[in-house]
């Protein structure tokens, strides 16, 4: 079924634990690789930096020590983008790992906040709100102890506002 207009959707595919090339295998845990494909065009620098953020977040919850010398590959394909793309990718990655049956120490979710020029906080902004905002912050929060796993900021905001 087609997504309702104005919604962000990401398709996640997870492969693993599979055989790793000897150059990539780690002796004590699984090597996680994330590939993010945009809706149009080739992946660029923005996708690469997001892939690293996603990889570090997923490695924090994945119990890689149970599958040493293996490779886990996560492929994310952007189907539609209407704002809050990074937190949608985080949610898709978490759902993918849960559905594939990989051992996890907790689940996590992604949340985007936009600070508009007046200082008000908007949760899960759409594309227009993101462009008008002074700063856009994305957080990954884990389910076990409600701690922040990852924080990403675009724009400028003061330390008090982050709290």
């Amino acid at each position, binding site marked *: 079924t087609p997504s309702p207009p104005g919604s962000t959707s990401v398709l996640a595919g997870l*492969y*693993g*634990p*599979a*055989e*790793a090339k000897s150059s990539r295998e780690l002796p004590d845990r699984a090597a996680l690789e994330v590939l993010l494909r945009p809706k149009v065009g080739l992946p660029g620098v923005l996708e690469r930096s997001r892939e690293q953020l996603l990889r570090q977040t997923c490695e924090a*919850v994945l*119990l890689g020590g*149970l*599958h*040493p*010398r*293996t*490779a886990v590959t996560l492929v994310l394909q952007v189907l539609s983008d209407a704002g809050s793309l990074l937190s949608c990718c985080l949610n898709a990655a978490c759902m993918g790992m*849960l*559905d*594939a*049956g*990989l*051992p*996890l*120490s*907790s*689940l996590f979710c992604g949340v985007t906040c936009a600070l508009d020029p007046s200082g008000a906080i908007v949760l899960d902004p759409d594309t227009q709100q993101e462009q008008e905002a002074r700063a856009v912050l994305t957080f990954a929060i*884990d*389910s*076990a*102890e*409600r701690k922040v796993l990852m924080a990403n900021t675009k724009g400028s905001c003061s330390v008090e506002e982050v709290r």
Partner: protein
Amino acid sequence: VMSARGEAAEVCVGRVVLPGDVLLLPAPARPEEDEERLLRLGAGAGPPRGRLLCGPGLRRCAAGLLVTKGGVLRHRAAGGAYWVDSQQKRYVPVKGDHVIGIVTAKAGDVFKLDVGGSEQASLSYLAFEGATKRNRPNVQVGDLIYGQFLVANKDMEPEMVCIDSSGRSSGMGLIGQDGFLFKVSLGLIRKLLAPKCDVIQELSQLYPFELVLGMNGRIWVKAKTVQQTLILVNILEACEYMTAEQRKQALAKLSGN
């Protein structure tokens, strides 16, 4: 916040649990005994009271058991085992599992088998019933072998054998020619291997066939004709998502043909 996280394990049996949930274990029967000594993992003889077995999908943590896979929590009173029934397609070798492997290489005295895991398993040519150095089994690259894991842990290459501990093959070994091999999810295999499986009984009413189920998600079927084999393959693949009613209807239509 920490104390509110855990729920008693008995309450959660039969419910869906998610990674990150902590299951609290019942207090020891004899209060003067140390808690640490009572919560033990794994095998070994010993008094059943207070002993606990931690199955797939669970790991020990400071407060009790930590759930690592999403699924339904199950409990077996005999032996006090808890485990999570989860679904996945990727197989991870476990010692003692019977699997179907495909021979990919012959390296000296050892065959290399693809079992669907992250590494290839090794199988010695002497691990067949009645095999000696002069009497080697006739196994070629591309053949199917049904065997069990002798060694399977995360640190070592998995090893398979086609004989059990007394030296008999008990149904293991080279799988014959013809037939059809296909892959399904691990949950379906566990359902088909359950003691009273309706699917297999209903299918045996339809045509006579040979069936080998591997715990790595692979099924080998052989019936008298190619058409019957393909019909069985389609039914087995579809019965994962069919209810019992739909399956009975499909089989009734086929046996009417």
